[in-house]
Structures are given as structure tokens and as C-alpha cells.
């Protein structure tokens, strides 16, 4: 029997070095395309603290192309107690060297390097900061507010994503700053696929007529294998004839349930009963797509990225297709016969192909008028876009500079989160205040046992000032929270470093891998007391 493609008689060492085998479990999650992008990306870590090393570990393991650690510290005894990537006898050696070697050792397919230099000095030198231009992502930890902001400004201008990691005792945070991102594959859970049962196109209508449950003289086999799409479409037709399209939904659901009971306990009818929402819960244009249509970028010009050309074309498409987006074409599984299912798949595939062809014409019309090269009808990017027509989205991430401007608008965003019950967001404010304390007094609040109580009023002073700038009431951050920060005293706990390191790596992967899925926009704060987190736009 011939071996399948991909199976060769390899030694263990060969298998371990073969990306399709080594990375099998992760490519099943994010796909081969994202994996290819990761494997060509270089990432820089500034300061190999435990949190930084943990973030990098979770990028080395899945196979980023290369990493460089920039750090001037020497391994201290504290490091040996918190950082997995130092050895007990590494004390006194350059931390950048030691950590990079032990991370490198995790995955021979990755290239590791280090630079034993003071990050603050390098960042504040307008020439030397260009060092970062070589990377596709930068992770920064243990930097002062001023240095972080300088780095952030440079990277924003270079369109390089920055991930700022902070950890103090039992609280930690991650801030993502990235250039505008357009995402084609969000890979959402498909609870509501686009089936258009309430308004079937001619071929689908034909199919429904040929396969529904109300036809006379149905055999028992045919009846029990009526696909739910036909049951729902036909029942909806009967319902709207009597009640119009705005009829009471409860009545429709009852009508379908009656169908179920009459049928006995048949899977396809049960499926229909469970999916009534499909008739009214799938808007022609979802909010994320409408936002793209309304965005400035959809007024395309000669140098517009292809993504926005597609968006504009899709907007035009809806105008000539009764407000509908190109049909994605994916069909969920359903109880029916093999023959009927394949026939239905054909109907969906043909419609999707026809819509894709129409899109291609519109796209090429625009490309031509912009003096650009036209696409082949089989263009893969267009195919992917049309398949994900309902999911395409764009993310704009607010810069660190904007965040630190501490505006009233920011205060309103934070207040909204509080109104939603997200009390963890107060930790964000407490950490911002603590950062100001650090800048002012050049140490962490509560650094020494003797300072825990005496630092509290000073930390509170910083917090009050911050809250006032955000137009938030003084009670927003309880004293208890500030006292707890003083108690933490800038301490490092490995579990918190590992948690936020993992969260950081996830975001780097999602941004570099496409972007794919939904990257964080833009701040995540986790408190290890309640084990609760909050994400929001800072």
C-alpha cells in the first residue's frame, strides 16, 4: 500500500526537525499560512526578566525564525529564584547571554542571539535606536515610563508592533501597540452561517422545492432525511404568507416545533427546531463589515492596499446584489442523505463561485482605473476574502502617546468598563499611578518593608492626580487596592510572569501570523488575587 504524502520513514531526530511534524499540533489551530509567517519573523526582547523570558519561550517553541535579547543586567540571585532560563551557577554572567542560550536550547530550528547593552541608553540615542528596525515584533519589560514611550514612538513610526509587559506582585498587564491591522480570517465560531433561507436565490429555491418535507408521496426514507434547511425554508414560506416577514417569532418557533412533534423524534426536524434563529439573526451586512464600508480607506486610491480594494469592490457588489455580500459558501453538516447533501453543497459552491466572479470583475474594474495590474479569476487572496466576506475587519490601535495623554475620552472608556462590572480595570489605574510613583521617586512603592505604610499616601496622591486628569471620581481606585500594590513592592512572582508571558506570546502570534483570529486591542490586565482579567482600549 502506497504511503500517503507526508509520511516518510524518518528517524526521531529527523521528525523533530521537520516542521510539519514538530509543529503539527499548533498548525491544526492557526493553519499553515500563519505558521509560515511565524517562521519568517524576528522578535526582540528588551530585558530578560522572568516575564520577558517566559514570553519569548512561548515564541521559540512554536518556531519563530529568530530572536535577540537586549539586556545589560547580570544574573542575580533573585533571577535564579524567578527565571527558568538561568542556571544556578550563572550568577554574575550577562543575563542576555545566559537566557538566550537556554531559550535557544528549546528549539534547534530557531536562531537565538543577544546584545549585552543598556536598553535605556540605546533607546534614548536617536541613532542607536534604529537597532530595532530589524525586527517584526518587540517585547519590552522593566523599562521606565519615559523610555517605554520613546521606544513606542520610534516603533510606531516604523510600523513595528510593540508589546509592553508589566508584572508587580499579584498583578500584571500587557499593552499592544500595533500599526493598523486588516484581518481576513478572524476564525469566529460559526453559530450563524449565511444560508439565506428566508430569501433563497433561484437555484436554492429550486433545490428546496425538490427536497422539502411537504411534498406529497414522500417515502419514509426521504421524509426522515429532509435536510433542516428545506424544512426551515418551507415552514418560513408558509409562515410569512400568513404573518408577513415581521410576524411574531414565537409563533414561528411553535410552528416548527409542531412539525418536530408530528415527525416523531427525527434528527433533521430537531435540527430545524434548534436553528430557527437562522431566519432572522443573520444580517445582510454585519457590523464589522459596515464599519469597513464607512471607513476612510474604502475611498480607494492608486496606492491602496489590496484589502481595501476588495472592501470597496464588496461595497459596490452589495449595491448590485440587493444588499447581499458575496456568499461565503460554507455549509454546516446536517442530517440528510449523501446524495442530497452533495447536491446542496453544489448549489452553495456554484453561487459562491458566481459571486466571486462578479467580485473579480468589480475588483479588476477598480484596479484598471487605478492603473494597476488586474487579478486572475482564480486569485487566492480574493478567494480567501470572499470565503470570509462576513468576517473581514480592520483594527486601529491607539498609540501609547495617546494613552499617556490621559484624556477625558479615555476616562469615559474606562468608566464604561466599570459600568459593565469589570472591577479589574481599577488595577490598570492603580498600576498607572504606581508607574508615576516610580518615575518620581526612582523606586517601586513599598520597595522596602518600612515603606509599605508610608508610601501609601504618596501613591494615593499620584492616583488622585491621574483620576482627575481622566475626569474619574476619586473612589474609582479603592485604598485597599493601592495598599496591596505597596505590599507587592515591585516583587516578582514566577507564576504571574508565566501567565502574562503566555498572554503576550499569544498576541505576538496573532499579529504576526496574519493577523489571524482577534488580536488584543489593546490592554489586558490580570489580577492574580481573584484570578480575573479585563481587556479594553486604553
Amino acid at each position, binding site marked *: 500500500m502506497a504511503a500517503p504524502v507526508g509520511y516518510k520513514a524518518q528517524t526521531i531526530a529527523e521528525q523533530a526537525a521537520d516542521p510539519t511534524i514538530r509543529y503539527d*499540533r499548533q498548525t491544526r489551530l492557526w493553519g499553515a499560512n500563519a505558521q509560515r509567517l511565524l517562521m519568517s519573523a524576528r522578535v526582540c526582547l528588551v530585558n530578560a526578566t522572568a516575564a520577558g523570558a517566559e514570553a519569548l519561550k512561548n515564541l521559540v517553541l512554536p518556531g519563530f525564525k529568530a530572536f535577540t535579547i537586549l539586556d545589560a543586567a547580570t544574573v542575580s540571585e533573585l533571577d535564579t529564584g524567578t527565571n527558568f532560563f538561568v542556571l544556578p551557577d550563572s550568577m554574575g554572567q550577562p543575563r542576555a547571554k545566559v537566557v538566550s542560550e537556554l531559550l535557544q536550547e528549546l528549539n534547534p530550528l530557531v536562531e537565538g542571539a543577544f546584545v549585552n547593552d543598556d536598553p535605556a541608553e540605546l533607546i534614548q540615542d536617536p541613532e542607536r535606536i534604529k537597532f530595532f528596525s530589524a525586527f517584526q515584533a518587540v517585547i519590552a519589560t522593566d523599562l521606565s515610563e519615559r523610555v517605554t514611550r520613546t521606544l513606542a514612538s520610534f516603533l510606531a513610526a516604523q510600523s513595528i508592533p510593540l508589546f509592553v509587559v508589566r508584572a508587580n506582585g499579584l498583578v500584571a498587564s500587557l499593552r499592544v501597540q500595533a500599526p493598523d491591522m486588516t484581518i481576513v480570517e478572524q476564525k469566529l465560531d460559526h453559530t450563524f452561517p449565511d444560508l439565506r433561507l428566508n430569501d433563497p436565490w433561484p437555484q436554492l429555491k429550486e433545490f428546496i422545492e425538490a427536497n422539502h418535507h411537504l411534498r406529497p408521496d414522500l417515502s419514509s426514507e426521504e421524509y426522515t432525511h429532509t435536510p433542516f434547511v428545506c424544512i426551515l425554508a418551507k415552514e418560513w414560506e408558509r409562515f410569512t404568507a400568513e404573518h408577513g416577514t415581521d410576524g411574531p417569532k414565537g409563533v414561528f418557533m411553535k410552528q416548527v416545533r409542531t412539525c418536530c412533534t408530528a415527525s416523531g423524534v427525527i434528527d433533521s426536524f430537531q435540527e430545524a427546531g434548534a436553528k430557527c434563529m437562522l431566519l432572522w439573526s443573520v444580517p445582510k451586512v454585519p457590523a464589522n463589515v459596515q464599519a469597513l464600508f464607512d471607513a476612510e480607506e474604502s475611498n480607494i486610491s492608486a496606492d491602496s492596499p489590496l484589502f481595501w480594494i476588495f472592501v470597496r469592490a464588496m461595497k459596490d457588489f452589495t449595491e448590485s446584489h440587493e444588499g447581499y455580500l458575496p456568499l461565503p459558501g460554507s455549509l454546516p453538516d446536517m442530517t440528510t442523505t449523501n446524495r442530497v447533501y452533495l447536491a446542496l453543497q453544489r448549489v452553495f459552491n456554484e453561487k459562491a463561485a458566481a459571486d466571486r466572479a462578479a467580485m473579480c470583475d468589480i475588483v479588476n474594474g477598480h484596479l484598471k482605473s487605478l492603473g494597476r495590474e488586474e487579478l486572475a479569476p482564480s486569485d487566492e487572496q480574493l478567494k480567501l476574502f470572499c470565503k470570509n466576506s462576513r468576517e473581514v475587519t480592520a483594527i486601529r490601535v491607539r498609540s501609547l502617546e495617546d494613552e499617556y495623554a490621559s484624556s477625558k475620552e479615555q476616562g469615559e472608556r474606562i468608566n464604561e468598563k466599570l459600568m459593565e462590572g469589570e472591577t479589574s480595570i481599577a488595577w490598570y489605574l492603580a498600576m498607572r499611578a504606581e508607574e508615576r510613583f516610580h518615575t518620581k521617586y526612582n523606586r517601586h512603592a513599598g520597595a522596602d518593608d518600612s515603606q509599605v505604610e508610608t508610601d501609601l499616601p504618596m501613591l494615593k496622591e499620584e492616583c488622585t492626580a491621574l483620576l482627575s486628569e481622566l475626569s474619574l471620581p476619586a473612589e474609582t481606585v479603592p485604598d485597599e487596592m493601592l495598599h496591596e500594590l505597596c505590599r507587592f513592592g515591585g516583587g516578582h512572582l514566577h507564576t504571574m510572569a508565566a501567565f502574562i508571558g503566555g498572554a503576550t506570546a499569544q498576541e505576538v502570534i496573532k499579529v504576526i501570523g496574519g493577523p489571524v483570529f482577534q488580536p488584543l486591542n489593546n490592554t489586558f490586565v490580570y489580577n492574580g488575587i481573584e484570578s480575573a482579567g479585563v481587556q479594553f482600549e486604553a
Partner: protein
Amino acid sequence: MAQDGRYAKLLRRPSQKAFPDFSANLDESKEALSKPILVVGAGGLGCELLKDLALVGFTNIHVIDGDEVDVTNLNRQFLFRADDVGQPKSTVAAKFVMKRVPACKITSYCCWIQDMVEKDSNFYRQFSIIVLGLDSIKARRWMNSHLVGLVAYDERGDLIPSSVIPMLDGGTEGWKGSVRAFVPKVAACFECAIDMFPPAEKFQECTMKTNPRQPEHCIAWAKTMAWTEEWPFGKDVSIDTDKPEHMTWLFEKAKEHAAKFNIEGVTYKKTMGVVKNIIPAIASTNAMCAAATANEAFKFVTRSSLPLNNWMMFNSGTGAHTYTYEHERNPECPTCAGKPVSVTVDGEQTLETFINEFLREDSRLMFGSVLNIRHQQSSKSIYWPKFAKKRTAENMPKKMNELISDGDSLLVKDRDSMDQNSSGLELTVHFA
């Protein structure tokens, strides 16, 4: 010691957000951290847990895992290297962490959790906390019911605190993860929330054989039907998912089947996925889950900060989404509510069948090794191999309706105990 800096501030400084009995004494905390704790699993979560627990100050860790290192583990189970493939995970993991963190002693066991009570029925009593990094619901249920069973009461009927062993349960799948804190008989146990898990997907036979629609149906047909019809590698030779020849046979068979029904999409990769029930797994999700779990262990044992109450879920596919809430105890929980569970069985089955099949397989019960069954109405044990060998041997081939009456109660224990206060599970048995 400067290394103490990692936790000294937390452990020396009092706080309103600590357990009420927190002493803010570093030496006491270190003493607590030196008591034995158990990690179950040395795989994706286990590796992370061992690292985290060692670096957060636990110095006496035990780890159980019966599995061996596989090459597809290397993308996330970072304590293993290509040279370790084929070696027992628990041994390799323990060795690696001890080398990095010399202050930490890790004892490894290469076996399964149920096996430990065969050797020593009191094995689990020694641990101050048990941390799970498992990939099976069955194993979790076993551990949970075992720990619930260890909880003892004094003469007044009050809980004996030292018999309560908390269980921390981490689980991951793709971008999603969860951390749950269980305190047996005090708060919700694992079984209280069993309905939260969707049932495992099983395709109907007619779908797989005569009406497949998806490539998965064709692969499942090859695995569950074609194999046992054709026995391609010899009669009764089961599928070994580590043998490429077996997997290739299944792949080709599935492809053939799919071709008959005009179904596209059967690939070798997909075949592996369906047959091995592969769940996509990445390092970062495991890292987050284990870290949060280990954090809970640290807080619980040192009392230095309030615990998770009691379920956190996170999904990194949708930004950085977390959700923490308190899952309440189920007052009808068959494991921890202490109320009899009503079961309906075939009265004609023998006691032997009742024990080996029903008690093991019924999804609410799932007993491991049963040690004693007491018939409440007659106050006699009908099954007690350790202390009533003869009577047990006589009863095994007898039918259930010979031994007891319809509606009678059986108290089933699956650990050895002469202590009347130790709980077992009471069943009210009805005959079908």
C-alpha cells in the same frame, strides 16, 4: 537569602486580601511550601506546572504520568528533547526541573492515578494540595470522587479539616483554557458541574456507513467499522495509533469510502486528527493555564492571598478574554451531596457484572477499584474481597435480584476503610 526576594514581600507583609489565618511569617510559609504536593500529568500542562510550582517555592513535588514522550510533544512540552522520545514523561520532566531548581525535590511515578491506590490506599492523603494537568474527564472524575471520599467527620459530625484536600484543575484546548478550584465537601466538586461538558461527538453508524457527508464520517467509519470487519493486521489486533502502517491503512480505506460517495477532503493529517482525537495544542495557552493554577496552589498553601472562587475560563482567540465566576455546589450531586443516587439495573445480572461493568461504566458513578459493597438493609457486606473472601467469592456469580430486593440500598466504597465516618456512595437500586 536573596532568592527569597521572589516571594518574601508577599509572605512577610500582612494584607486584608489574604486568608484570615495568614500569619505573615516567612518561615511558616516556607514550612508550608515544603509539604508534599502532587501534580497529575507531565504533559502540556504538567511541564508548565512543574516549572511554575518549583519556581514559586514548593520544594517537595510528586508527579504522576504513565505516558512516554512523543515527537509531536516537542512544540510545547518544553522539558523534553528529541533524545527523550520513548522515555517516561514523569521521569524526564522531574530530572530537568530539579537540575534547574536544585532546592526542589521532585518524585516521579510512571503509572496512572488509579494504580497508586492499588499499591497504597492512603497514597493521596499525604498531599496538602493536588494539582491536575489532565486531558481526560474520566481521570478528573476519578480523582475528584477519591478526594471527596477521603473527607472524614468527627463524632459530632463536623468536618475534619486535615482530611480535606483541595484539588486544582487546569484544562486547555486550542486558544481556550480553564482553571477550577475545588474544595471537597466544602464547595463545589468536579461532579457538581459535569453537565457543563458537551457530550463527546459520536457519529451514527448509518451515517458513517451508508450516508456519509463529511470526510470525518468516512474516517470514523474506517476506524470503528471497517477495521473490526477486516482485521487488516490479524484478528483482534487493535488500532495502534503510533504505527504508521495502521494509520495508512485507515487513511486509504477512508479515502476509498469517500470516493464512493463523492466526498473530498480525506487527508492523512485529517485521518490522524479524527483517529487520535487530536486537540490542537499550543505552548502559550498551556503556559497561562498552568501559571494561574500554580498561582492558586501558592496562595492556598501559604494563605498569602485570597483564592480563586472558583472557576476561571479564558479564550485567547478573541482578544484576551477571561471570565471568572463562582460555580455553586449541586445539592443533588451524586459525588459530594451525600444523598443516595437512584440507579436502575438489570436484576438478572450477576454481582460480578454489576461491579465490573455497571459501576465502572455508568457515567455518574465510574468507580475505579471497588473495595466494599454494603447492603444497608441487612447491614452486611455482599462484596469485600479483603476481609470476607469466601462470602465475596460465593456472591460474585449470584444474580443481583437474589442478593438484594428492588429498592434496597447499597453503600459502595472504593477505598479500604474500617472507619464508619469515611464516606462511600449510597445507591438506591431499582430493577428494570
